[in-house]
């Protein structure tokens, strides 16, 4: 079985400050990892994904996440946040072999303060 832990339920941060949203996973097999973003009154949207290759993956709007196998982590970072980044962020894991479905974390609400 696999699981995902998002350590912070809410993260307040001032505009233009850096942010890190933490995600740890548990799995006995090779994994795929995802971050989704949910803006108010919308569905989840894929922000970035790690399937294989470079352990550092980036999104088009300045977020990045690094797959750390030894620490079983996939933390999401942005060096300078904007008001428009206010949203809920979900970390998710699936197994690379395709035998298990995606498992989602419970989400972290990022509140950017002007």
């Amino acid at each position, binding site marked *: 079985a696999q699981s995902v832990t998002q350590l912070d*339920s809410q993260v307040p941060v001032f505009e233009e400050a850096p942010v890190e949203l933490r995600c740890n996973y548990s799995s006995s097999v090779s994994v*795929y990892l*995802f971050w989704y973003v949910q803006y108010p009154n919308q*569905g989840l949207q894929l922000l970035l994904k790690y399937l294989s290759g470079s352990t550092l993956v980036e999104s088009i709007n300045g977020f990045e996440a690094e797959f750390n196998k030894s620490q079983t982590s996939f933390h999401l970072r942005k060096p300078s946040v904007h008001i428009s980044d206010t949203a809920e962020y979900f970390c998710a894991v699936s197994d*690379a072999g*395709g035998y298990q*479905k*995606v498992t*989602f974390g*419970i989400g972290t609400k990022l509140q950017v303060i002007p």
Partner: protein
Amino acid sequence: NAGVTQTPKFRILKIGQSMTLQCAQDMNHNYMYWYRQDPGMGLKLIYYSVGAGITDKGEVPNGYNVSRSTTEDFPLRLELAAPSQTSVYFCASSYRGNQPQHFGDGTRLSIL
């Protein structure tokens, strides 16, 4: 470029009524899912389907039913609505079970 379409967007039901939440995708995805989202609780998987004619229970299936007669459509049926089913319901689809999921915009359901 519709993706995953859910209808209705909002609905208020009385206790004991029934209704069907509609979900359609135009990406020819094999896998489809229904989740409910409650504040602070993340996403709970209700039912999923790996292809037309095949459905299976998720973690919270009680009080719900699904069918998958076509690749495109995956309706969720609520029988005998209860206040505990007040939630936001999301439908999603993916090409394979371990691939990124595409979500609809949700149906906000209140049962009074």
